[in-house]
């Protein structure tokens, strides 16, 4: 095994033919890693990676300590959302909710409509409104995927964002998601799985999304609940009018005493409706089914209930929009999970012990490794690479980098059957297309909106399973047509949100054969089939303008079947 890795490594490094089973050139290897471990190649990148050494590139990608590429600092400055606190966003959300409540209180009247219209105008017209800030998250994510040199990190961030999916538009999550992405996911995407798991478990975004913040011990009495609330419990609200000065009236005035009575009544009402009634199993189930053990991971319904009981008290302190443990609503009885006894009375420590236990369970190692292999190797990942990943997991104590390295070193990663075998997700397609034509992105949400139109509105997957990794999840008639139209629009320079200069891809020429060969080289990395070459040449025959011919040929190459795969 180690020998095989050594042989593979040498062959790739030296650009020599690989063992008979894997007749890949260094160019093939470079194209493969740029497709799988990055968001596709920019023109010339395959050659430069092949020249410098594919393994060297892999080592560099695995060597970054942080997904943040310092070279992107200037670009990221255009996204205000990266510099707004979760607490500020929570305040904006509450202000919006209060305005909606005041409008709704007008009944079915013109005043109500006017107030709602005003709110909408304010949100759309203001770069720093909650709605604008939220729209920047898919945008900055798309731009980073295009521009960052830390390509593998960006791929892993996307993977974990879906593994620990949170729906950005569920209530409070509109305020919590930015911090979830920037701190919880990006801050832990390359570390230990256990730390990432704990970070998600304690994130207000996840606590709200999967209702754990609402889950209290059965039989917690209301007084206990109130006490819990007094210390920042479930329904605790930041006191309007005190925390951030007086409560602003949308028409510019200020309510006497600083508090808008209608809004307060609405907030109280909402808090009462939200008042927890008992145990909520939602997070407990998804924690085991999706985040750790997997659906066949050997847990039972009593395990789900006991996990939920252990995690009672893990909630959100809305006064500072942060995680808090509320002992008053924590289940004080002993519990058993997967045969392990959890003695009574250990409060928050029970949850920490549980998360560590789940993170290091063999079923978790297998389940998460298989998902990583589905991302990096094949929709139906072979056992070999999963076993390699699990071995690295055991040896490293769940270091994500070590697991990913093991997958890349696995012979399955390089097997010809697994090269060009995966269909790109909409995000991968859009980003790789923009990279392939060396286009410049702007800071508007327009490019991310195209990703959404192709079927993958980022952070808007409602159910906790996240966006899928298999071709069945993405290939349908409307989606394919949308990809073809996207490609043609991009190549013709008509794509809002990006600036395309085809001179940065291939030179303009009257020699169609030379043009198509250059496009094969620059855009498809030499993967163009004979049929595609002939079809494009045939279509170019009646196009006299060399600029139009170049745009058409690039559009067909990106919209064509080769470019849908990676």
């Amino acid at each position: 095994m180690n020998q095989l890795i050594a042989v593979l490594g040498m062959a790739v490094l030296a650009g020599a033919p690989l063992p008979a089973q894997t007749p890949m050139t260094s160019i093939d290897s470079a194209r493969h890693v740029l497709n799988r471990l990055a968001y596709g190649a920019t023109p010339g990148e395959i050659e430069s990676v092949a020249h410098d050494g594919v393994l060297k590139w892999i080592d560099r990608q695995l060597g970054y300590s942080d997904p943040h590429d310092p070279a992107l600092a200037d670009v990221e400055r255009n996204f205000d959302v990266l510099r707004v606190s979760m607490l500020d966003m929570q305040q904006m959300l509450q202000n919006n909710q209060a305005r909606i409540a005041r409008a709704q209180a007008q009944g079915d009247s013109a005043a109500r409509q006017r107030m709602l219209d005003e709110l909408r105008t304010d949100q759309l017209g203001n770069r720093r409104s909650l709605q604008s800030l939220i729209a920047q998250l898919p945008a900055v994510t798309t731009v980073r995927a295009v521009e960052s040199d830390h390509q593998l990190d960006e791929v892993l961030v996307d993977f974990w964002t879906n593994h620990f999916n949170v729906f950005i538009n569920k209530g409070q999550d509109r305020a919590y998601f930015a911090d979830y992405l920037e701190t919880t996911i990006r801050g832990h995407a390359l570390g230990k799985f256990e730390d990432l798991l704990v970070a998600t478990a304690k994130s207000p975004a996840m606590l709200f999304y999967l209702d754990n913040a609402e889950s209290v011990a059965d039989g917690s009495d209301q007084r206990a609940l109130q006490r819990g609330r007094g210390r920042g419990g479930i329904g605790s609200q930041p006191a309007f009018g005190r925390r951030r000065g007086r409560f602003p009236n949308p028409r510019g005035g200020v309510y006497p005493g600083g508090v808008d009575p209608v809004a307060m009544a609405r907030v109280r009402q909402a808090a009462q409706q939200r008042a927890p009634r008992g145990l909520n199993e939602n997070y407990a189930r998804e924690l085991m089914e999706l985040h750790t053990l997997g659906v066949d991971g050997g847990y039972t319904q009593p395990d789900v209930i006991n996990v939920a009981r252990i995690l009672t008290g893990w909630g959100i302190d809305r006064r500072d929009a942060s995680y808090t443990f509320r002992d008053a609503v924590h289940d004080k009885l002993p519990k058993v999970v997967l045969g392990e006894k959890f003695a009574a009375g250990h409060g928050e420590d029970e949850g920490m012990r549980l998360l560590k236990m789940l993170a290091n369970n063999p079923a978790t190692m297998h389940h998460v490794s298989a998902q990583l292999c589905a991302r990096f190797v094949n929709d139906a990942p072979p056992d070999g690479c999963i076993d390699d990943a699990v071995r690295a997991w055991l040896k490293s104590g769940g270091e994500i980098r070590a697991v990913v390295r093991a997958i890349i070193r696995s012979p399955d990663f390089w097997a010809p059957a697994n090269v060009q075998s995966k269909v790109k997700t909409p995000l991968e397609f859009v980003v790789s297309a923009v990279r392939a034509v060396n286009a410049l992105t702007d800071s508007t949400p327009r490019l991310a909106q195209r990703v959404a139109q192709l079927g993958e509105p980022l952070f808007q997957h409602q159910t906790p399973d996240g966006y899928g990794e298999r071709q069945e999840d993405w290939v349908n008639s409307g989606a394919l047509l949308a990809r073809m139209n996207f490609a043609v629009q991009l190549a013709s320079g008509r794509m809002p949100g990006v600036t395309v200069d085809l001179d940065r891809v291939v030179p303009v020429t009257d020699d169609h054969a030379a043009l198509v060969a250059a496009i094969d080289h620059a855009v498809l990395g030499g993967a163009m089939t004979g049929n595609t070459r002939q079809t494009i040449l045939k279509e170019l025959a009646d196009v006299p303008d060399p600029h139009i011919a170049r745009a058409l040929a690039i559009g067909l190459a990106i919209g064509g079947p080769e470019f849908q795969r990676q």
Partner: protein
Amino acid sequence: MPISRRAFMKAGGLALVSLGADPLFLDRAAYALRSAGGAASGGKTLVCLFQRGAVDGLSMIVPAGDSWYWQERQRIALAKEQLVPLDGMFALHPRLASLKPLWDRHSLAIVHAVGSPSTSRSHFDAQDYMESGTPDVKNTPDGWANRYCTHAAEHANTPFRAVAFGPQLPRTLAGSAPSLAIDDLRTFGMRAAQASGEQKLTRAFEELYQGAATGLVASSSAETFEAIKMLKTANPTAITPGNGATYGKGKLATSLQQVAQLIKADLGVEIAFVDVGGWDTHVNQGSDQGQLATRLDELAGALAAFTTDLGERMRDVVVITMSEFGRTVKENGTSGTDHGHGTAMMIMGGNVRGGKVYGRWPGLAPEQRYEGRDLAITTDFRAVFSEVLQGHLGPASMAQVFPGFDQPAAVGMFG
């Protein structure tokens, strides 16, 4: 030998040779199915209309004979004289009055106190369960309508067999049987500045995909180009509404008009899926005016236009409405209703035995409610779906379409 189109394409051309079968679907681009026996399903169509957000079934189909309705809904109950009576017990919301003629002609059936046995009051979970057809099972990979289409896949001789109107394929139609996702018929195809450009691009991409695509991309793209060609030949968007029907503005009316156009163009639509949102009325739901009334107005207007437009053809078409759950019996403090349990479904057209409200009425007294607050469920939604599939589209294995569901006694809407 039933073999799915998709499996066919995955296996590649060799499979055709080894089976000795004619690859009919490879060159059937120019034909449109004849309604008279041409379509293998008998030319029947089921239109699924999903009311996302949980519709208040008690406002849609009002249990006027249950005194608790009036007692618990002081602010949002409809005035008695505005109601459109159906039988001694139930009445239509006044904004659904345009559906009353269907009821009178026995073409509209209602099932009340229907829903999912799942206890979830989460929109996300409950929609997921209703679409997968497997309550409380989250890892079901496909939707119930897709599983129906995989059954008897040898009938799948048109790319239009299952069509969803929207940018994405809904969970209901997700799965291994081919389904089209069409946001708008008028823009389904290649876009270019000139028509000649569109033709050139369509031809070029079709050749590219025919020559080099593999697997699912190959089969899906083949279906796509075939659909484009069939649309070009049949030109359904040129078909004007029949019988003086007028569709209103809005996405729902447009989608239903396009469903009718596909049906009338004989493109072989067996299952069509349309979404309509805006039913999550927590605040100021209103009664005869207001949010809910506006939504119901749009719903009834679009459905009335659709049934009028299709006229006699409604014999072959059934429309069913569905929603993930209902809403609380008691109005809340903000003149709205919160997430509940049971709701109502409407089934119209085909051979439905209409003019009747089906399902046992559980009553609205507090002790009769689900968890003391919601309309209890006396009919499982899968029983209704099963009966509609079998009663209208034709026999199929319901164990396959709704795994794990023990079929109870018939609801009795068909046959």
